[in-house]
């Protein structure tokens, strides 16, 4: 779409949840991303397969705050919250949330940095730390560590939670110049 049509689009309404359009062509609100772009981002950046989200819809409330929801709702809907926040768009680099990464990060196989026990402890406490060994992309990474049994040691009866890799995601980190900054929000930090 060109710039002329862009200006005819509606403005975002921060008081309600709007379901994301399927593709950029179906967009009616200025600056709003599409489901397609969200799936593409999770796949391109973190290698999370698109079909992970077949049973979920994506919503925007407030400029660039994207929510993921498994239930039923009409669009738009005025409600306190819907599913969980998953992504910040409308900024140069999109940023997934800690809670989303803890829930869905196990399906990722790219941009996942594995932390040792002590590093994981610092990360959970919200500390930044120098980590020289990362050779992947800079930017937002999923920090993960081993906890409990690996997949081979886990039985399958308790649903989807037993699938995925053997690493458990801790949250989102920002990796720049050899430093991993913990982006765990204050209320979620723990001294372990």
């Amino acid at each position, binding site marked *: 779409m060109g710039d002329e049509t862009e200006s005819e689009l509606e403005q975002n309404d921060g008081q309600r949840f709007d379901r994301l359009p399927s593709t950029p062509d179906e967009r009616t609100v200025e600056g709003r991303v599409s489901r397609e772009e969200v799936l593409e981002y999770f796949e391109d950046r973190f290698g999370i397969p698109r079909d992970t989200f077949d049973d979920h819809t994506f919503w925007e409330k407030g400029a660039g705050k994207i929510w993921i929801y498994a239930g039923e*709702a009409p669009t738009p809907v005025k409600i306190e919250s819907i599913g969980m926040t998953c992504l910040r768009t409308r900024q140069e680099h999109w940023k997934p949330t800690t809670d989303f990464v803890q829930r869905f990060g196990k399906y990722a196989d790219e941009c996942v940095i594995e932390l040792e026990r002590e590093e994981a402890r610092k990360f959970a406490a919200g500390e930044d730390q120098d980590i020289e060994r990362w050779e992947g992309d800079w930017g937002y990474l999923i920090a993960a560590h081993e906890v409990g049994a690996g997949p081979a040691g886990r039985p399958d009866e308790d649903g989807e939670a037993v699938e995925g890799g053997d690493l458990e995601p801790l949250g989102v980190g920002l990796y720049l110049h050899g430093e991993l900054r913990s982006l765990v929000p204050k209320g979620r930090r723990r001294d372990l």
Partner: protein
Amino acid sequence: MEPLERYRPIIDDFDAFLEACERPLGNAVRINTIKASVERTLEALDQEAVGYEQADWNPRVLRLETDSPGSTWTSFHGFTHGQEEVSAVPPVVLDPQPGERVWDCCAAPGGKATQIAALMDDEGTVVANDSNLGRISALRFNAERLGATSLAVTNEDARNYSLQRFSFDEFDRTLVDAPCSCEGTIRKNPDALEDWSEDHLASVSGIQKGILRRAIQATREGGTVVYSTCTFAPEENEAVVQHALEEENCRVVDFDLDLEYAPGLTEWEGDEYDSSLEKAARIYPHHNDTGGFFVAKLEVTA
């Protein structure tokens, strides 16, 4: 403990009951199967050398041997959620199924609503409502920490709740975990009985009746409504269900629960209740070394 004296005639081994009420409660957590299986959670606790005892009646409820259950890896990852053992009973009695539409009408801070979502494998719609805006933030925080994507949060008075905002007009199941005088939480909160008075009972029971009636109206025929409180007062328990039986289309039904409990009352201080109220459960602190709870299961009829 003075207000509890009124229950001497209805509680077996009343002295054991009073003694249990004076003992503090340990730390219980529920395993959040949205994030991890029971087996993996136990393994993670073993790795951390945190001791636990699994509840006989529910493998997803653990008594933790630690003073800071929030400072564990399982808590950080949302594998576990601090929740009193008996507080995990109502969602189990509600028995929600994946894909259903379920209403938790007094949901904050969200322990039971997220338990409902977990029992549904996080598939379907759980509408978690609370009338108190201040408590909504705790509800939202817990829902996100525990990874419940099937949960939608609303802030309304449950007594005149409207489903207009949704694309459906009735629920399959509803949990009414009503605001109450909280006598059963005395072991967690020694101040629970400070504001106790018969006037207070009368005023909360009015609110409870209104919420339970609306819950039955909002649930489909053949659907399930569970009414629960953490109090012993018959005015807030059997009398509220009795009122619903008289005013709405519903009946009390049986349920299985592998915990020790006493049956619901059919009579209290001169008032008679329907004989089906015996199917309700009165869980006392000395029965299973827990807090106190009342649970009744209703089926919505034509």
